[in-house]
């Protein structure tokens, strides 16, 4: 690895917060298992993360001792369940530095969070600042997950608005050359990934949010790959909405988060109707609760919220800054190590700057399916395919990619196992 000497007086590498990765690994029961007779090397955290005992225990504890429905019971257990659910909301709010817990809407996953905003927009009356129609534009990017493409395509179909997008440079960065033209007076919303799930790129925010707000557009950040890996402070980011998903941040599946600035959430009409989201109901019509309840129709994922709260506590205990550094060092190590594999091409930033610990690559003459299969035979679990970002694969002229994605429990030994596995792949297909 290339090391740079940092001048005296500047913050040194030694000052960076760190943690003992072996101690962290001991918290994750699944990391002790084998796959095909080899110790499992789990390099698919970008897909879903593993869960620490603390999260598993918190959910079991909830079911064993506090299970009841929320917000509609006067009894003791119901009160405990409500406190647990609302407590999780408060934890998540603190984790991303939201102005208040009421800015946190619990949903099923990031996909639902994004769709919620899209449907609230098309449900908005023409007089609303959220209303969208022919002539209006929505801007996304070429590096989006399908979750941040398809809802906007559908919204444009419903409203007659036009979809536009940032291009991606060869180096795997958003091409901001045309920022001022792309984001213009017609733009109503800019929605893009804080961190790319394929390239690992950490995208810039200030230039884009500044331009968007200058022309009166709102900004949604798909932070599905951001919140789990880097410190995220919504006050700092200057965005209007943030979407993320529990299962990629040590929490369970079935719970995700939409953060929105409260004055915007307040202007948004409901999307799903039902129990818990109303103020009063007559046979003719209903009035609706204030956010976040307005957007949480029906019985919510209660135990999942508790699990997410425990995940947030766990990550906070380790420290998001330390997790960011751990992954940065892994990325540096892996980029160097993968660079030694003949015929390997990295898609995205090849230096560990402005990127996280997710690395996609191609191996000359071998289809990613075959790469993934042979890696699996030696216990190395990676993702292969288009990673729900088909336009990005098209951008790079490949039908599919192989992706290794790291997290706080990933080690350099595991990166070595990946590189050894790739040698095996080359032998079989050589």
């Amino acid at each position: 690895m290339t090391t740079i000497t940092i001048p005296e007086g500047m913050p040194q590498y030694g000052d960076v917060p760190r943690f003992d990765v072996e101690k962290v690994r001991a918290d994750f029961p699944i990391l002790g298992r084998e796959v095909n007779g080899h110790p499992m090397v789990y390099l698919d955290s970008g897909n879903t993360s593993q869960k620490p005992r603390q999260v598993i225990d918190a959910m079991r504890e909830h079911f064993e001792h506090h299970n009841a429905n929320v917000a509609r019971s006067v009894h003791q257990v119901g009160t405990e369940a409500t406190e647990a659910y609302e407590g999780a909301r408060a934890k998540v709010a603190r984790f991303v530095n939201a102005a208040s817990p009421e800015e946190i809407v619990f949903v099923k996953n990031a996909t639902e969070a994004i769709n919620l905003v899209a449907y609230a927009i098309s449900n908005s009356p023409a007089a609303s600042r959220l209303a969208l129609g022919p002539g209006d534009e929505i801007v996304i990017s070429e590096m989006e997950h399908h979750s941040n493409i398809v809802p906007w395509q559908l919204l444009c179909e419903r409203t007659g608005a036009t979809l536009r997008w940032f291009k991606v440079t060869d180096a795997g960065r958003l091409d901001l050359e045309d920022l001022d033209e792309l984001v213009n007076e017609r733009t109503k919303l800019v929605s893009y990934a804080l961190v790319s799930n394929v390239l690992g790129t950490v995208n810039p925010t200030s230039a884009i949010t500044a331009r968007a707000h200058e022309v009166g557009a709102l900004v949604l950040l798909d932070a599905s790959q951001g919140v789990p890996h880097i410190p995220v402070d919504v006050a700092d980011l200057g965005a209007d909405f943030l979407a993320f998903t529990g299962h990629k941040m040590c929490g369970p599946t079935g719970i995700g988060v939409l953060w929105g600035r409260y004055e915007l959430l307040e202007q948004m009409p409901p999307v799903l109707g039902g129990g818990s989201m109303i103020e009063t109901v007559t046979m003719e019509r209903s009035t609706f609760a204030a956010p976040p309840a307005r957007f949480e129709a029906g019985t919510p994922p209660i135990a999942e919220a508790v699990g997410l709260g425990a995940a947030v506590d766990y990550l906070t205990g380790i420290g998001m800054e330390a997790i960011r550094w751990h992954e940065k060092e892994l990325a540096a190590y892996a980029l160097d190590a993968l660079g030694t594999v003949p015929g390997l091409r990295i898609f995205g930033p090849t230096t560990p700057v402005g990127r996280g610990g997710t690395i996609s690559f191609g191996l000359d003459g071998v289809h990613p399916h075959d790469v993934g299969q042979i890696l699996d035979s030696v216990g190395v679990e990676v993702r292969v395919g288009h990673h729900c970002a088909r336009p990005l694969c098209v951008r790079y002229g490949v039908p599919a990619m192989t992706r290794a994605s790291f997290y706080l429990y990933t080690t350099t030994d595991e990166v070595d196992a990946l590189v050894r596995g790739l040698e095996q792949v080359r032998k079989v297909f050589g």
Partner: protein
Amino acid sequence: MEFEQLYQEIILDHYKHPHGRGLREPVTGSSVGEAHHVNPTCGDEVTIRVAADGDVLADVSYDGMGCSISQASASVLHELLRGQHAGQAFKIMDGFVELMGGRGQVTPDEELLGDGIAFAGVARYPARVKCALLPWMAFKDAAVRAGVAGSSPSAAASEVQGS
């Protein structure tokens, strides 16, 4: 090692040296059908062109791109079905489909399936069964379009879609 079951030498050989690859112009007078199938989860693609002369599959040509399993399967399909009577071709196809659906429990009939028996190991990997079946499902559709009797179109599309 595990992967040797999956990547039988026969499969790798068909992948690295595909037999009769490339779509061929049919001789005039034959009845032609073509189908292009895509596996949406991985982007593998295969096009199969069937040129029928009455009841005989005078040519079965193909093209595609994708993983070793899907492309080797197309090469084997070409080997097995070209020149066959429709009835026998569908018998072979049914045998191959049965083998792939057998989760490794079906003993393949070498007489019927030839090099296709190398795919027996693939049946143990549900994620890869679709790769192996991709050209066969495309063939099924192409045969219908070529007006070859004994083929039913409906199952084909649904089997490669999904997941």
